[in-house]
């Protein structure tokens, strides 16, 4: 659920490190480097990239719209083409029958069958449009924190990979209880030692 939705879903990340100069330009550069590419009419079945917060289907990072106050708001877009199995099966059957008729044979070899299947999937992938999924991202640069508005495992994994590819030199760390305690609570060294030596409490009778 996105930032402006009625209900929201948030995964938090800590960003370790910072840009030496002009963070807005560095962020723009990173976003442009991994901007989502159109895979309509392509044999590619998936694309992952950054997109604009306000215009997720016409991304543009040349204007200043991704900067909101001291934050950067943009989107993670995952475009995926899913071909229904039954359609693949149908098209493979049609193509196989055609091949048999043309070659005047009763059977196709294993290689021919897989070659036909591969060809069918390729043709269908080019023909069908991808289904886009957009997840809002807000980078609170001064707070060294990024929020991804999703808790879907696949979206989180794609986000982490893409962020690391886009902004080399920065380290993205997911904030779960231990990392939150270790990185954001300003614990002393001795408290940090006590924390790392904790073991589960026993509340049983």
């Amino acid at each position, binding site marked *: *659920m996105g930032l402006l939705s009625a209900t929201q879903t948030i995964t938090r990340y800590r960003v370790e490190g910072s840009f030496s100069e002009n963070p807005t330009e560095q962020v723009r550069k990173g976003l442009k480097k991994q901007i989502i590419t159109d895979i309509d009419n392509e044999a590619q079945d998936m694309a992952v990239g950054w997109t604009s917060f306000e215009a997720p289907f016409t991304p543009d990072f040349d204007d200043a719209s991704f900067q909101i106050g001291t934050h950067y708001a943009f989107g993670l877009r995952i475009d995926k083409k899913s071909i229904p199995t039954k359609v693949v099966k149908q098209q493979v059957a049609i193509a196989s029958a055609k091949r048999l008729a043309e070659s005047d044979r009763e059977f196709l070899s294993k290689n021919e069958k897989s070659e036909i299947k591969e060809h069918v999937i390729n043709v269908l992938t080019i023909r069908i449009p991808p289904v886009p999924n957009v997840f809002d991202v807000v980078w609170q640069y001064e707070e060294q924190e990024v929020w991804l508005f999703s808790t879907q495992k696949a979206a989180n994994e794609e986000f982490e990979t893409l962020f690391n590819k886009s902004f080399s030199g920065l380290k993205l760390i*997911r904030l779960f209880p231990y990392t939150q305690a270790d990185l954001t609570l300003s614990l002393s060294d001795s408290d940090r030692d006590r924390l790392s030596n904790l073991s589960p409490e026993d509340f049983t009778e």
Partner: protein
Amino acid sequence: MLDIAVLYNKYKFLGQEFLTWLWYSLENEPKSLLDAEGVPVLMAVGNRIVLEVIREESTVESVTIKGDNADLSEGIVAIRKGALVTEISLEYKKGDLGWTFTLKGENFNITALKTPETPPVESKDETEGAVIDKLFLASEVVNLVGTLFRNFVRLRISETWSKKTVPAMKRWLTA
């Protein structure tokens, strides 16, 4: 720091103990839960609690209690048998404003977060203001959870935990 995945699994209990302690505190000593300014937090358990216990290596037993005014005693029995709270829905109030959200113990994911209502965005010019408003309202919950968790961690690594908190929690569980 150890590998992130190792840390995630090794200290999974930390967030679950936090939620269990939070439930105990809300039921028994709500005024002890303080926000960053030291003001008691107006918070209540919402309509869903999930508890889990790992019996053997990969066998997880789970108890879900849901519904408004649900009887939570089954959850207390589950904790007595070794379970911890893994997910809890919460209601939070500050002044006239109210938030509801669900917090997951193992990763602190916040889901189903409903902030106080903001005006609908009717034109592009209003987007920036709406983003700032929504972020501010969502931050209230994120910061509050951060403060409560900080207080929990300080307690958890102190002697008070084993000397006072655990015995008090056990009394609550067996009352």
